[in-house]
């Protein structure tokens, strides 16, 4: 009940003309990013951060959140119309979405994706309203030891972003932690890893690193390939609604997608692509005609699109309540919050209640705006694909340069971005995952601070982490996650050895 009162207050702020305008701009820019192949939500959100620099925190975060979930939907349009996913979560939508478009049913595919995204996003936001306040209150009991142990859980979940190799994910995580340590030591004030370079005393900025790793890194990978010029559509958009006999199956698929996306959003270390892929697999398993999947069945579009939007909204729960970013895009949002002087976590609900509830309310509003924007304007979005990529590339690079420069008015930060771009490009080519580095870059300073605060409280006694029940529980969870992940890696080596022995 109290949550609903807060939510009403949030609506009164989010519905102001200014915030509505920024939510709409965010949805438009987000959809634009999603539509453009090669730019995912993480890169897009990072590139557009500079637009929000001089705004107040509430409209700034409302706009960035709108960019985030707008990009999630934008990727669907290209998947359906031209078989090119705008971002990873939309890859699976190509399978049936494009087939539907080829059969002249692009409209219903896009329509059900928009409706599913709306329902998934709205239900997940309702879940956020219900869960956020109790969870934040519980988290208020945390002192530095509990917070340190919680951050250990967050870091151990880096395993979830491991990709093909756990060890390489850990190496990237360590690299992010080391980058976060450049600058002045938070407790004693001693300079660390600054090599006498004055700008490094302020540390390595989060924005230049993200721009380098995600923004420009992706551009270079795209630039390697020959530009194919103007893209052509796979289907004409007419009616947006499914046939009457398809509605029941769509509704059950949307409900399953919502549940799955919401659940996965609560788990840090997953991502929206996992939500959409799992949802597609589940639909295929429960379907009476699994053999038809991939030939243009509507539930093959409805479920994954619903799941990825439910995921996008639910992933904000661990961020707002515990200060844990679960995915690279959420980590970028967290960085934007910190830049605006707002520390995500339980205190956010106590100290900045108006802000946080306005952002939550804006998620509902954003979902409505997306629905209104996307259905009638699909044709317009498709036309954007006719802009040659080489022209877009110049403007994307410009935004990256402005973004890196404008945070501290520092040309040095542009240099940092270029170095990170080279590193990001090499690591991405070699399949070293970049997401762990971004997460640890953000969590690293908090983790070090809480560890050292804890030990100051206990006067150097490490048992403080094991004698407090919540802290102990989190450390046990961390150990379980680490051991489970290590177990998955070790047997492969052992198996290989035993095979060799048998031979």
């Amino acid at each position: 009940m109290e949550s609903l009162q807060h939510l009403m207050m949030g609506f009164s702020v989010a519905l102001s003309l200014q915030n509505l305008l920024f939510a709409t701009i965010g949805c438009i820019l987000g959809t634009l990013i999603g539509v453009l192949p090669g730019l995912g939500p993480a890169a897009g959100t990072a590139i557009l951060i500079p637009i929000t620099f001089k705004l107040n925190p509430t409209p700034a975060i409302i706009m960035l959140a709108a960019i985030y979930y707008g990009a999630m939907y934008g990727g669907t349009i290209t998947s359906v119309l031209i078989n090119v996913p705008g971002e990873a979560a939309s890859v699976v939508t190509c399978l049936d979405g494009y087939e539907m478009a080829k059969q002249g049913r692009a409209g219903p595919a896009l329509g059900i994706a928009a409706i599913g995204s709306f329902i998934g996003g709205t239900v997940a936001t309702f879940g956020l309203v219900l869960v956020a306040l109790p969870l934040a209150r519980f988290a208020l009991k945390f002192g530095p030891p509990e917070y340190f142990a919680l951050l250990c859980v967050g870091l151990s979940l880096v395993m979830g972003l491991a990709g093909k190799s756990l060890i390489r994910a850990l190496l990237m995580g360590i690299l992010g932690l080391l980058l976060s340590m450049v600058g002045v030591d938070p407790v004693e004030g001693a300079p660390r890893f600054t090599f006498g370079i004055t700008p490094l005393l302020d540390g390595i900025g989060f924005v230049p690193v993200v721009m380098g790793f995600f923004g420009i890194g992706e551009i270079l990978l795209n630039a390697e390939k020959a530009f194919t010029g103007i893209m052509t559509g796979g289907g004409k958009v007419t009616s947006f609604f499914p046939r009457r006999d398809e509605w029941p199956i769509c509704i059950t698929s949307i409900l399953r997608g919502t549940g799955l996306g919401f659940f996965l959003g609560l788990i840090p270390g997953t991502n929206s692509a996992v939500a959409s892929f799992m949802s597609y697999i589940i639909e295929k398993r429960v379907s009476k005609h699994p053999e038809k999947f991939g030939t243009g069945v509507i539930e093959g579009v409805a479920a994954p699109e619903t799941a990825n939007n439910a995921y996008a909204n639910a992933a904000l729960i661990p961020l707002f309540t515990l200060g844990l970013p679960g995915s690279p895009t959420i980590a970028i949002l967290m960085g934007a919050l910190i830049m605006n002087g707002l520390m995500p976590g339980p205190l956010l609900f106590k100290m900045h209640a108006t802000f946080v509830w306005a952002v939550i309310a804006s998620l509902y509003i954003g979902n409505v705006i997306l629905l209104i924007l996307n259905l009638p304007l699909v044709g317009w979005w498709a036309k954007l694909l006719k802009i040659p990529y080489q022209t877009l590339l110049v403007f994307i690079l410009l935004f990256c340069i402005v973004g890196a420069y404008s945070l501290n008015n520092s040309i040095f930060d542009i240099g940092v971005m270029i170095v990170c771009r080279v590193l990001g490009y090499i690591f991405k080519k070699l399949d070293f995952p970049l997401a762990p580095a971004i997460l640890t870059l953000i969590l690293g300073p908090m983790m070090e601070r809480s560890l050292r605060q804890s030990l100051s409280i206990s006067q150097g006694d490490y048992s403080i982490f094991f004698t407090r029940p919540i802290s102990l529980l989190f450390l046990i969870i961390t150990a379980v996650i680490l051991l489970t992940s290590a177990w998955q890696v070790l047997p492969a080596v052992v198996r290989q050895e035993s095979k060799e022995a048998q031979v």
Partner: protein
Amino acid sequence: MSRLFRVVDCLLLLFGAFIVHLSLQLSYGAEFGPGPGFFSFWLGVLMIGLALIDIIGTLRQPQEPLPPGFIPDRDGIRRVLYIVGALVATLFLLKPLGWTLTIFCFSIFLLRTMGRQAWWLTLLLSLVSSFGTFHLFRQLQVFLPTGILGI
């Protein structure tokens, strides 16, 4: 492919050793608990250990050929180098020349080398990207650098 991984792992191993060396120059302990060098020391050690494990792992794997498209064709390399070169040049020219002039040259160079647009379109887009963004961001209270010419 695994040979390439080994090279990167060796570089990461050396980087880890460098971090350990730097951390030992910082104080390891403070009055209560760890000092400024504690975290980085153990992270460096961990990096060395993980890089070694990965090297051993790649030694056990059979030699695989590079995946198709791993090394871009000549045009692809040229495009990547053009972008990197343009960015590095921007880094050094931004202070003396200012935003508008530097970005005008940057845009003309990339638009002409990446695509094959008509000159009038290249000039128009370059004007928008340089003067246009300068004034757009000024409206957003982001002041981009002005050079010796004051633009």
